[in-house]
């Protein structure tokens, strides 16, 4: 048994505390250096751990983005993934989760046709769009079983994976028939830093670039044209009014004044 794991990653701004561009009403990210979406580190690490768990397995990273997004594929290789695919082209620009998940699912299908895929891994969400829905939407396009919020892959064999999903009230155990899609959360592992060997491999790595045509999609199905929703306007959240300082000579006095405020405001 050997697995083929696909891990979907995204290039996001390294600083997401960005202003709104008054001209477009959209976030102004130009000039902010891109980086690997921090939550994807857990998905990459899990792919590498699965490779270690099941010898002979391979892992492929996939991203949708501009030419610069190849850097996050390089980061994935540095962390132990075998190779990557850059889904890129002008037609993908301005896509939302709906359009991007269609592009990702088509890339996964193409990889699946080349070498059957066992698992597709995602991070919890991205630091920019942040819907946390792209993994589950990719599974939906593929019509593959999936689980999000996964804190542990308990068992995996040729036919299935048993996973622990963290719910609001406890933990579900689910058995997914393979191929399947898994959305990870932070608790699943502790990502390691890239190794020297990984960094060397990353330097040399060359990534195929697939456009809509290679994925068997029409340009109108992806990017802004294929988006199901659009941000009409971005804004900074309203500022909070200056706070009240509770002061007193002793802890008991401060406690009394604080409780006065909480009761007066009907908060307790």
């Amino acid at each position: 048994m050997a697995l083929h794991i696909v891990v979907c990653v995204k290039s996001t701004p390294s600083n997401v505390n960005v202003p709104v561009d008054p001209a477009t009403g959209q976030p102004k990210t130009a000039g902010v250096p891109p980086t690997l979406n921090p939550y994807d580190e857990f998905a990459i690490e899990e792919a590498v751990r699965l490779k270690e768990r099941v010898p002979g397995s391979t892992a492929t990273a996939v991203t949708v983005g501009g030419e610069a997004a190849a850097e996050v594929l390089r980061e994935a290789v540095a962390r132990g993934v075998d190779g990557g695919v850059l889904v890129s082209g002008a037609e993908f620009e301005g896509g939302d989760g709906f359009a991007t998940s269609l592009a990702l699912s088509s890339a996964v299908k193409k990889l699946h046709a080349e070498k059957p895929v066992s698992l597709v891994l995602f991070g919890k969400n991205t630091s920019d769009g942040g819907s946390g829905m792209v993994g589950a939407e990719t599974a939906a396009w593929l019509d593959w079983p999936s689980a999000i919020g996964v804190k542990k892959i308990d068992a995996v064999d040729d036919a299935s994976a048993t996973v622990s999903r963290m719910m609001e009230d406890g933990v579900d155990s689910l058995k997914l028939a393979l191929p399947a899609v898994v959305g990870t959360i932070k608790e699943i592992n502790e990502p390691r830093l890239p190794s020297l060997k990984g960094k060397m491999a990353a330097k040399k790595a060359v990534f195929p670039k697939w456009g809509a045509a290679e994925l068997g999609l029409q340009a109108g199905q992806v990017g802004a044209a294929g988006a199901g929703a659009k941000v009409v306007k971005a804004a900074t959240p309203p500022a909070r009014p200056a706070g009240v300082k509770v002061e007193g000579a002793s802890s008991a006095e401060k406690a009394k004044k604080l409780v006065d405020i909480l009761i007066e405001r009907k908060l307790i």
Partner: protein
Amino acid sequence: MANPILVVAVPSRGKLSPAVYELVSAGRKLADSLKQPLYAVVTSDKASALAPDLAARGVDKVFAVEHASLGAPVDDLHAKAAASVATKENASRVLVPATVLGKAVAARLAVLLKAGLAADVTEILDGGLVRRAYFSGNLVAEVEFKTPVGVMTLAPMSFPRAEAGNKGEVVTVAFDPGASKCAFVSFAAEESNEVDLGAAERVVSGGRGLGGPEGFKHVRDLAHAIGAAVGASRAAVDAGWIPYRHQVGLTGRAVRPKLYVAVGISGQIQHLAGMSSSGTIVAINTDPACPLMQMANVTVTGDYNELLPAITDEIKKRKGSPVAA
């Protein structure tokens, strides 16, 4: 022809969660704004028993899709069941709770209905636009659907819970969602009897400033005294002082309680993103200059070791016995 607003009541362990009542009030607002009726669909093995509760909260028509397989928290089965009603009734907007299962169901619904999706919606605007936070909470977006059908998940605690209203009709629907490639094996309930963070009206959280796991004893005591859920910063979770389940912030849970008390939390941006929409924020910290103290509504400077027991004692004294959750 009507294009109703459809609330998808995905049950949690065989019951309707308070999040579903929040969907009903948001759905009513949207329905009135778009001049459409408000429908709901309950997908459950006990759907016909659960439906009347929703029908009594001002929903015009409740569809009870009942099938034995819908007793399990398996996303594709619930999505197929809900999509069958959405398609047949020509729903224009589909509202789903932003719970772990709800999100999975919403993603399948978006693809089944070829619908755009807006996640973690916190506000419904006039004309059917919705508002959600993005860029890790640094920005809010006004989102417009481009597709005839729009699916949205609603952030818990963002809308009031619908109370008794006009009594709607209950329609039982026969539907077999078929087999799934996902099998539900088992559920292990969280052992503690603490209040769930996501649905809590009050949260008391502790951070690195607590200095160690014993500091959480004071946090828990205060939380119990006011019927609050216990939260934590990433630093406290990473240090192993409290399980990940309690983590508030981008890598953990987002919360919107009426009252958020942050103890010994400096306020990393990732933490702020998970709690900055709380009603009233109280910060207790030794450092008055830290970001959380800067953004809080009420601040107390001092040592939590002395302050927390004093606050807990004062509350017990004033309120009598501990407040129930």
